[in-house]
């Protein structure tokens, strides 16, 4: 089953996808580590920010898994994860600029990911473009 689908659809984990999955994996790990430390040590300080960090970690993990595996379901998972990620970084980025008081502690997505070299903003765009590029055999 896997063989026939990967013949029809180019694998999202090869070529540039290999680098993309690596970066998603690194972000999943760092966001998860950051969120768990924040939630474990001083959750009361900024619960919204910390829960958003945790959400971001889950989204990054799902995107890494979706892009790293082959098959239509993995592709769907990656598509949902990258879309949620893009909406998340745009929403949180905008809100964090308009109402900075709501974000006493930074999240991965604050200021459109400025604390992480804007990689959180670029990553979902690249992910979606890559999913589009690999949709059909060229």
């Amino acid at each position, binding site marked *: 089953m896997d063989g026939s689908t990967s013949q029809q659809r180019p694998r999202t984990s090869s070529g540039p996808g290999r*680098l993309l999955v*690596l970066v998603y994996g690194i972000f999943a*790990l760092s966001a998860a580590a950051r969120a768990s430390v924040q939630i474990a040590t001083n959750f009361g300080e900024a619960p919204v920010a910390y829960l958003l960090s945790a959400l971001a970690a889950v989204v990054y993990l799902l995107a890494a898994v979706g892009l790293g595996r082959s098959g239509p379901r993995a592709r769907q998972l990656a598509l949902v994860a990258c879309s949620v990620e893009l909406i998340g970084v745009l929403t949180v980025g905008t809100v964090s600029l308009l109402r900075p008081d709501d974000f006493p502690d930074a999240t991965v997505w604050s200021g459109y990911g400025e604390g992480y070299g804007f990689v959180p903003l670029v990553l979902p765009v690249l992910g979606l473009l890559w999913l589009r590029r690999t949709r059909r055999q060229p």
Partner: protein
Amino acid sequence: MIDAVAWSVIAVSVLVGLGIIGLAVADRRPLTLMAYGLVAVEAAALVQVLVAVVQLVRGERPDEAAVFAGYALTSVLVPPAGALWALSEKSRWGTAAAGVSALVLAVLTVRMQQVWA
């Protein structure tokens, strides 16, 4: 953390990382050379954590101990895991990914310095 150690680790990581990305741009893939570089990166990460452990044993404490431990663990796991994932792809993108997994150590080391004091 000892600054001299940290900066040496950053230097190794950046040198190997950018070097491998340069190879990717040139579309070359000298596996043995890259393996030496990536092993050097992992060795640097291990030495750095070992030095930190010695400091901890001697009674020094990082400001944010839990965060530091997380970074320390990540710093020895991510470069080799990333490099293996990267080099199983035989195109220039795999080579570039191997370079990125080496550069991660530099970023993590900067963060470790920040949370140590």
